[in-house]
């Protein structure tokens, strides 16, 4: 594969915009990304649009930018939609199908618990409330407590950290400190998960423009953000060796593959944006991404190792918990954050990197969907690297 570069990123701030047109949010995010790249809409040769609702096709929401005739492919991959669009755009450029490609994710969500809003036909899943994600992650949390001594306070500390980071992110949905007592005292959603341990429902859009070496030579300005690994997995057979719901196996396999592709390890990372849809997911994924041994995840957050100033900052953007989780936009927004961080443009939430001279390597982790056998359905792991010269 030929080298692939991030040329520009843009986001419509995440939040609640029930009266805003999706097309306005998409146009804002794409326009920002194009401006960031120094490109025009007519320069986009291929677009992947991640969306989660019926009828929300990219052809409908991108046409307002101009009828350029650009091919547009829709991507639906649940919470992993945004990173799946990004993966596809990168692969197209890497294969030489386009010099410049766009990945955009967007969502306008109904209020309430993710998965619970719709009236559905009577099935085992619908009459038992099994589509409701908080129950699934309540079970994940219970499992961490039983197997590794994780406490409700540990879960709360994840929320405290990510909400603190979100205070410094002008594009985050919630910009408020949440003291640990407030997290623990907030409304019980799915035991042991309280409201502040759950990502909110969110509207928003995020866009990434990627390009070939040739495009980077023309448009990037001396700082090059290159894709060094892109690994995907769907549900592997994990037998009974792992607990269910199994949020571990797929991420372990995908991150291992990504490290191998990049010729590096978790110890080389300067920051991570991971999928903290619920607080226990962050603790589990510290372990699944190899940031620490299995069973040691809670220790990282207790010791502050994953704070912005810590050994390995995780979710400096505020994560899903604070920034919000507009399903199909989330994975693209993680790429935006890595790019800003690697360029040193993250303002008050800027991480210093292991060298203290600014971060050079960042990892984004974006899983989605729950299967009938209680595993995640899909995961993407991407690693980006800042370089001072073209590869």
């Amino acid at each position, binding site marked *: 594969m030929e080298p692939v570069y991030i040329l520009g990123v843009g986001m419509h701030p995440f939040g609640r915009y029930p009266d805003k047109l999706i097309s306005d949010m998409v146009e804002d995010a794409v326009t920002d990304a194009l401006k960031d790249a120094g490109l025009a809409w007519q320069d986009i040769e291929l677009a992947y649009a991640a969306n989660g609702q019926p009828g929300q096709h990219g052809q409908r929401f991108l046409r307002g930018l101009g009828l350029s005739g650009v091919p547009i492919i829709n991507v639906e991959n649940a919470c992993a939609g945004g990173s799946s669009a990004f993966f596809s755009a990168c692969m197209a450029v890497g294969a030489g199908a386009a010099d410049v490609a766009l990945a955009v994710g967007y969502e306008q969500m109904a209020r309430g618990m993710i998965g619970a809003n719709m009236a559905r036909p009577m099935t085992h899943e619908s009459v038992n409330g099994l589509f409701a994600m908080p*129950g699934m992650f309540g079970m994940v949390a219970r499992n961490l407590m039983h197997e590794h001594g994780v406490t409700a306070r540990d879960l709360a500390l994840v929320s405290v950290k990510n909400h603190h980071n979100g205070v410094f992110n002008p594009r985050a949905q919630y910009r408020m400190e949440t003291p640990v007592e407030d997290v623990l005292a907030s409304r019980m959603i799915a035991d042991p998960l309280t409201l502040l341990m759950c990502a909110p429902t969110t509207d928003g859009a995020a866009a990434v423009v990627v390009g070939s070496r040739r495009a980077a030579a023309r448009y990037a300005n001396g700082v090059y953000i290159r894709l060094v690994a892109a690994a995907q997995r769907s549900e592997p057979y994990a037998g009974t060796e792992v607990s269910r719901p199994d949020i571990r196996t797929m991420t372990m396999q995908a991150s291992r593959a990504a490290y191998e592709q990049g010729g590096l390890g978790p110890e080389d990372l300067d920051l991570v944006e991971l999928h903290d849809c619920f607080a226990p997911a962050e603790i589990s994924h510290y372990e699944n991404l190899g940031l620490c041994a299995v069973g040691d995840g809670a220790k990282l957050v207790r010791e502050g190792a994953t704070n912005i100033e810590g050994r390995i900052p995780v979710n400096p953007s505020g994560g899903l918990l604070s920034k919000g989780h507009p399903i199909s936009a989330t994975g693209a927004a993680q790429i935006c954050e890595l790019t800003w961080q690697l360029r040193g443009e993250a303002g008050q939430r800027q991480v210093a990197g292991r060298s203290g001279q600014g971060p050079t390597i960042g990892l984004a982790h974006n899983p989605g969907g729950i299967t009938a056998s209680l595993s995640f359905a899909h995961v993407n792991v991407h690693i980006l690297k800042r370089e001072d010269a073209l590869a």
Partner: protein
Amino acid sequence: MTSSEKAPAKPLTTAGRPGAFMLPGAAAPAALLGGHCRSCGAYDFPRGRFCPRCSAAAMEEVPLSTRGNIHTWSTVYQDPGPSFVGAKPFTIVTVELPEGVRVVSTLSVAMPPEELRVGLPLVLDVVSVGSDADGNDCYDFRFRPA
């Protein structure tokens, strides 16, 4: 079908598959119907045509044990939406069956949180969940403490 004819009792689909469990009858008690791979020995629920482990088209239908243990659980306080049938709050459970299969459902009886624990023995329960759009009396499986 005329309105005077009684529609048959109907088990709900599980993971999109009909026939995932058997209603109690004269000859046999209620049971979950799983798959057992004649090639590698893996169990699956609900039964598909191919083995989840080795992909062999060798899945035979077997009734699974009606007793299991709590693998993990969560009591859900948030409104589960209009399709839910039962009392709220409700407790969602992952149940480990002796065959090594884990199935997810809810408890058919309310349990105080302090009585719930990993490993708690449960037994299969069949519950009436009302009638569907075609007027069939529908049933589903849940679990209760053994």
